[in-house]
């Protein structure tokens, strides 16, 4: 699909089908659901960042008249360490069980220890005080350096580093090491005229979705138990609950509520298995909602990181070698996105000699979860900062420098495949032509830019498309709609069927209605679920043709389908989709199409962001004064929502670069567990976020779609920090560029 194709619906800016409910308050999110007889669950959380649980006595709580059930780790059937796919990453069942309810140790401040279900939310909260816990407090391990120290306290006394060339013989806080290479960096660096080598750091940050985690669970012995949950992947909630509680998949029915943001943070479970235990023990439906403070302390933030990067280039601008060592914090249990960090860090560049090694390090913080392009923002921040410094040293425009070395079709990636058609060159050229880049940098301002790469994934999606006798229909999909994807599904089906999109209502069905659907994540939904929708719609078209053919007594090959009408090529008969549906009763029954895919060929999406900042030289305060996000969408199904993904990713990245960070005290307690002091960007903090959609079609998708959701958060860290570097004329190596940090850079160096 290299030539532009004319579309009827795709590329339009339709009104989303779930829009009315969302602007009127009718849409039901996680906390909006209730069941008859419902009671409330609350969780007791650790006051220590690292401690052994010497004693846990719940008897007084159990005896309280308002308390209907108490749950502890002992209520899990014995589970063993076993990797299973859940959400965007592999999960270990044992780790998950110990994260959801601590076993013998608490590993972070806020770690769940026990749960109570009581007649009211207040009663449940009150009864938590009746649980008696004795701790042996251990020193908290709060940084990569502390975790790697010779005499570091161990979070897990049996954890041996995986992936070493020689198997580890003593336990440590390093869960695993990996390395990737291409060519020979030593000989590469030997050819370099200029080398930049620095260490970069990023803090623990949170996805910051506005809706706290919430669930309602009703255990049922005779029929499937019901789980209502705010999740990016209800099929994977089912898998997790089933693994933890040893229930058959068919015994658990999960309904995905409307979801109030996730960004990767709602790809795992915290409350659902606990609520299931409480419901089973109490015989009542149980509702659990996290407070905002619990969300910050005990859901999954994103890894803090330290990246050592070395890049060498010839005077001509040709990069000859790139090398990096990445350390990613995993939180309390193994499994940071260090792997994707290693794989993405240098992928924007076609360089002969590459070497990357990564370490997955456990610390006494909440277990990290996915956050939009997990691992890539941290890693690529380091690479892009070094790239800009190198461009400056070579006295080459940073866009020209990237164009000289840009990855393109055929570039051998460090992680395996060669790239197919990709749009980095097009994004760089669009950036150079943009009004933003063409404008002069304002007085007292600085400008930065950065590129970003994310793989995107495909995977399993299943869709059913049912038609009604009047020619309307329902698209039944299984991908929780986190940002308007139902609009895109509607448009893609309408495009295939040649009818108006609003004749088809897309719904996100529960786990009993459809076969397995992978979690909404990896920017896969519009791509992979879209392919299932297209397949289902094509299935419908085939059936419509057969039905008409049978009525006209011709073969299916003798009919054509166009714009919602079947044409008899052997005569001049024609029937609309609605007419065929109306007569379906007579031609074999009602019509439905099916699309079950395991989509491959998710096209990577590249982006380039431009940022201008103004820094108050007396206070260190940084204001973003202009911002442009340029990204390859393959084909934008609904351009407004594609732009929205670019803008949302950019602004999350701006927050990460400027003000967001977990602040811990010396006891390992987060001191800013609320939106007051965990400072996400506000409307008044930002300028317009300009967007440019680049479309280099993905040949693996019928309409050319590439996932767009994640890449947008990759470039802003480097773009903003480079702009700050430019404004204060100092190299930034650590984010956030909070005012105290920036002021100290201004004051401490000449």
């Amino acid at each position, binding site marked *: 699909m290299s030539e532009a194709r004319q579309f009827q619906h795709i590329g339009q*800016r339709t*009104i*989303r089908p*779930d*829009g*009315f409910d*969302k*602007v*009127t*308050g*009718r*849409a*039901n*999110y996680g*906390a*909006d659901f209730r069941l008859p007889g419902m009671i409330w669950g609350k969780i007791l959380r650790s006051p220590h960042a690292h401690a052994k649980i010497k004693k846990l006595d719940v008897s007084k709580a159990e005896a309280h008249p308002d308390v209907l059930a108490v749950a502890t780790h002992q209520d899990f059937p014995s589970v063993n360490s076993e990797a299973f796919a859940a959400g965007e990453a592999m999960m270990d069942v044992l780790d998950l069980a110990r994260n959801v309810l601590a076993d013998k140790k608490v590993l972070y401040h806020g770690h769940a220890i026990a749960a109570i279900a009581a007649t009211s939310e*207040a009663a449940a909260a009150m009864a938590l005080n009746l649980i008696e816990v004795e701790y042996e407090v251990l020193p908290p391990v709060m940084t990569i350096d502390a975790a790697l120290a010779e005499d570091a306290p161990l979070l897990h006394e049996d954890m041996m580093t995986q992936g070493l060339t020689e198997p580890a013989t003593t336990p440590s806080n390093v869960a695993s090491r990996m390395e990737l290479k291409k060519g020979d960096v030593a000989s590469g660096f030997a050819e370099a005229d200029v080398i930049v080598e620095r260490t970069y750091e990023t803090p623990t940050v949170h*996805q*910051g*979705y*506005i*809706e*706290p985690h919430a669930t309602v669970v009703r255990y049922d012995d005779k029929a499937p138990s019901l789980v209502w949950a705010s999740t990016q992947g209800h099929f994977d909630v089912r898998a997790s609950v089933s693994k933890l509680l040893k229930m058959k998949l068919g015994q658990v029915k999960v309904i995905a509520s*409307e*979801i*109030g*943001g*996730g*960004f990767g943070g709602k790809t795992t479970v915290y409350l659902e298995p606990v609520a299931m235990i409480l419901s089973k023990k109490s015989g009542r439906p149980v509702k659990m*909602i996290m*407070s*905002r403070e619990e969300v910050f302390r005990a859901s999954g933030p994103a890894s803090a990181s330290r990246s050592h990067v070395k890049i060498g280039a010839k005077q001509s601008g040709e990069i000859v070698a790139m090398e990096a060592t990445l350390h990613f914090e995993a939180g309390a249990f193994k499994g940071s996105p260090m792997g994707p960090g290693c794989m993405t860090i240098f992928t924007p560049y076609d360089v002969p000699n590459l070497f990357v090694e990564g370490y997955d390090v456990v610390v006494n913080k909440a277990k990290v979860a996915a956050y939009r392009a997990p691992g890539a923002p941290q890693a690529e921040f380091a690479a892009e900062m070094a790239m800009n410094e190198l461009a400056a040293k070579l006295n080459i425009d940073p866009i020209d420098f990237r164009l000289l070395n840009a990855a393109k079709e055929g570039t051998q990636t460090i992680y395996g495949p060669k790239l197919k058609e990709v749009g980095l060159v097009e994004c760089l050229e669009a950036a150079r032509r943009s009004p933003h880049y063409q404008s002069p940098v304002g007085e007292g301002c600085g400008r930065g830019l950065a590129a970003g790469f994310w793989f995107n994934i495909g995977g399993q999606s299943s869709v059913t498309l049912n038609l009604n006798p009047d020619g309307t229909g329902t698209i039944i999909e299984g991908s929780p709609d*986190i*940002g*308007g994807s139902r609009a895109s599904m509607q448009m893609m089906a309408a495009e295939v069927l040649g009818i108006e999109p609003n004749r088809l209502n897309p719904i996100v069905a529960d786990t009993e209605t459809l076969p397995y659907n992978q979690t909404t994540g990896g920017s896969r939904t519009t791509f992979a679920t879209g392919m299932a929708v297209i397949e289902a719609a094509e299935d419908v078209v085939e059936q419509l043709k057969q039905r008409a053919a049978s009525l006209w007594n011709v073969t299916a090959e003798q009919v054509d389908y166009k714009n919602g009408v079947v044409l008899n090529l052997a005569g001049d008969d024609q029937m609309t989709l609605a007419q065929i549906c109306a007569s379906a009763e007579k031609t074999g029954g009602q019509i439905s199409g099916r699309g079950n895919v395991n989509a491959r060929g998710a096209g990577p999406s590249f982006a380039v962001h431009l940022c201008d900042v103004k820094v108050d030289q007396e206070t260190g305060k940084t204001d973003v004064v202009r911002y442009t996000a340029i990204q390859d969408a393959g084909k934008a199904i*609904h351009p*407004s*929502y594609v*732009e*929205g*993904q670019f*803008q*949302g990713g*950019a*602004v*999350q990245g701006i927050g990460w670069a400027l003000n967001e960070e977990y602040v811990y005290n010396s006891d390992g307690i987060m001191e800013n567990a*609320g*939106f*007051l002091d965990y400072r*996400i*960007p*506000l*409307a*008044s*903090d*930002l300028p*317009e*976020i300009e967007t440019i959609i680049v479309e280099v079609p993905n040949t693996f998708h019928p309409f050319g779609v590439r996932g767009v959701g994640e890449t947008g958060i990759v470039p802003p860290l480097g773009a903003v920090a480079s702009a700050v570097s430019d404004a204060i004329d100092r190299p930034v190596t650590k984010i956030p560029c909070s005012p105290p940090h920036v002021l100290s850079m201004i004051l401490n160096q000449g």
Partner: protein
Amino acid sequence: MKTHVQTEINGEAVECLIDPSTTLLNMLRNDLLLTGTKEGCGSGDCGACSVVMDGELVCACLVLGVEASGAKIETIEGVADKDQLHVIQEKFLEHAALQCGICTPGLIVSTKALLAQNPNPTEEEARYFLAGNLCRCTGYDKIIKAVMDAASVLKEAS
């Protein structure tokens, strides 16, 4: 001991029995089943629970339910006229000013309050007035465009 609250919500007389420690937010959501008003933080820092009380925009999580006695409350459920969306609601949809939608009820209530007191805001005024309504999905760009467009439509209509 529970307290009897008589109030007016979206023009309708309403009464309920609540514990005096209950916030207006929990009263709306749990006792009156008006779940359009959302909770994002419970501490007045996110604006998801924005409602108008006696003409002032407030966070329902920072009001006690008992304070609603004798007051007039306006929530998201009262913004549309049956199936007829308010211009602000239409503009939010037209401009794709929502992704997940959890902040949307609060933003629409706040926008209505903004335009009631300042029908002709500059973009900067709109951004500052709405600074207490956190949105994590959109980067605010399309929200502000929807607000400015709604303002101009309402101004023409008046």
